[in-house]
């Protein structure tokens, strides 16, 4: 037992502790504090590992990047946790179990981020998805919540069955489940190579479900609208980050870019996601659905990274540059998205863009925060989103992927239109129909807004410090 397992152990103990306290005495405050304490301790134990030498065991890998990504995950969860107390108080349900499921989902994603073996990946994935079913269907008395729960249960089960089928085929082919051995036995399988390609397609299909990329994107908008707001925030950040990290790891370790069919499929999916996601977002009036479509487009941009190894490089940059680009883009996107959701959680009655009319003249702080976040999502300079996209474009230019680049540019231009429309709505003079009197600002919320502004603008204006940190991490 080395220090590397400490975060997961802390989380498990927190889960057991909160389960015990739930059975002894139900109290919302106690559950909230236990959850927060557990998250804090986990963050501390992760923080101790940053910069330490990593190890690789049979099931898990702890290199330089893993604790950093886990820490980012924990920060995102804690930013949602800060607002959870107030948001749950307004909910007409039992409140304490939400924290339990939240902790379990976090544990699952931590396992996934560090997984180095199909077994640990599968266990983490299922722990996360099954907790998410509970989180999505949490307000089960509402028709919409229940519908979203059933949809998520069926779709995530199908996705994991697809992934398992892929794993089984690869296992039959190579006789191993470890990620490391996938590349070593690249050529010598027991069955012809089309079987390998089939297995990879199965795994990719499941992953596309989890990341809601284009052929499998239809569920995400329904889910964002139907699920409780905090759950949507977690789904958009936690589950997608963990799934993408694993996909990235398998893709590079298994050297899947050597199969031409796979490269074609991924490129097609990436282009389709960028265009379809942004185009559907253009037609959308509901804010949550808009975010769902924008997340489809953003993960389409990220898929470019997977294809880097397949294309010729002009190599004026180092090989760690693509790692830097992924991490920077993920962090930028996650912080922006969690910011948007926490602003939305502060004004629960706002559903559509029309509801935002004239928000700037009533609640300037909220409106400015939301406007900055929208600019960051669109990738306007001086925000963190711009830096993320800048890195991505740099790597893509370096590897001369002109098709993907042109799709990225077209997608971004379409996207710009609807992000700016949200801002326009807020600046418009109030028409008297929108009622913001019910909005009360809490200290927690205010502080969080300032923190978000600081992060988005600070890292957008002075990205050097942050990128240097990531660079040293990805070298070490």
């Amino acid at each position, binding site marked *: 037992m080395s220090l590397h397992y400490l975060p997961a152990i802390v989380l498990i103990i927190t889960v057991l502790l909160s389960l015990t306290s739930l059975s002894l005495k139900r109290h919302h405050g106690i559950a909230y504090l236990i959850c927060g304490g557990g998250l804090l301790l986990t963050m501390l134990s992760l923080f101790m590992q940053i910069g330490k030498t990593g190890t690789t065991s049979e099931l898990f890998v702890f290199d330089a990047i893993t604790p950093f990504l886990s820490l980012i995950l924990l920060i995102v969860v804690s930013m949602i946790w800060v607002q959870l107390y107030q948001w749950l108080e307004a909910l007409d349900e039992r409140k304490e179990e939400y924290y339990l499921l939240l902790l379990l989902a976090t544990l699952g994603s931590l396992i996934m981020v560090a997984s180095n073996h199909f077994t640990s990946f*599968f266990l983490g994935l299922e722990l996360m998805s099954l907790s998410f079913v509970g989180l999505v269907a949490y307000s089960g008395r509402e028709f*919409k919540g229940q519908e979203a729960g059933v949809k998520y249960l069926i779709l995530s089960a199908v996705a994991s069955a697809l992934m398992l089928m892929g794993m089984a085929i690869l296992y*039959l082919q190579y006789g191993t489940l470890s990620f490391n051995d996938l590349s070593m036995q690249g050529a010598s399988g027991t069955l012809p190579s089309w079987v390998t390609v089939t297995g990879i397609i199965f795994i990719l299909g499941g992953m596309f479900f989890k990341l809601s990329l284009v052929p499998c994107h239809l569920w995400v908008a329904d889910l964002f609208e139907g699920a409780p707001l905090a759950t949507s925030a977690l789904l958009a950040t936690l589950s997608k980050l963990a799934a993408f990290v694993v996909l990235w790891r398998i893709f590079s370790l298994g050297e899947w870019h050597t199969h031409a069919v796979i490269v074609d499929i991924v490129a097609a999916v990436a282009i389709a996601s960028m265009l379809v996601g942004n185009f559907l977002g253009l037609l959308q009036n509901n804010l949550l659905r808009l975010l769902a479509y924008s997340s489809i487009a953003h993960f389409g941009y990220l898929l470019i990274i997977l294809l880097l190894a397949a294309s010729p490089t002009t190599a004026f940059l180092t090989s760690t540059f693509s790692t830097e680009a992924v991490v920077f883009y993920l962090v930028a996107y996650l912080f922006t998205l969690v910011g948007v959701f926490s602003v939305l959680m502060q004004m629960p009655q706002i559903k559509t863009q029309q509801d935002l009319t004239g928000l700037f003249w009533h609640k300037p702080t909220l409106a400015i925060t939301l406007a900055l976040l929208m600019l960051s999502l669109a990738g306007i300079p001086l925000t963190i989103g711009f830096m993320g996209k800048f890195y991505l474009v740099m790597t893509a230019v370096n590897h001369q992927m002109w098709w993907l680049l042109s799709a990225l540019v077209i997608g971004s231009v379409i996207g710009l239109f609807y992000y700016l429309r949200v801002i326009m709505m807020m600046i418009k003079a109030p028409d008297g129909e929108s009622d913001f009197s019910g909005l009360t600002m809490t200290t927690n919320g205010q502080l969080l807004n300032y923190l978000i502004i600081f992060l988005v603008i600070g890292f957008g204006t002075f990205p050097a410090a942050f990128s240097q940190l990531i660079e040293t991490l990805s070298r070490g």
Partner: protein
Amino acid sequence: MISIHWLLFLSLALFSIGVYGVVARRNLLFILLSLEIMLNAVVLLFIAGSSFHGNPDGQIMYLLILTLAASEVAVGLGLVIHMYRQHHTLDVDKLSQLRG
């Protein structure tokens, strides 16, 4: 000894039956049953691979998938009970409030 190809085809066929069931059935209970068929197809392939390569990893995966299937059914049945209590139907086509 039959060729390993046949096992692959058998498993893929079972999997397709499961997928068809998920897509075509409208009753939530039958969808859950079809999911079980899909998982069992996967399990078959894992066991086949395990005995083919003589390595126990596939059998461990089998146990883990068994656990997954049980917990999935548990969560699914919870939702089934909830849905039946409220709507007195298990027809998933009735769940169509969320439209963009």
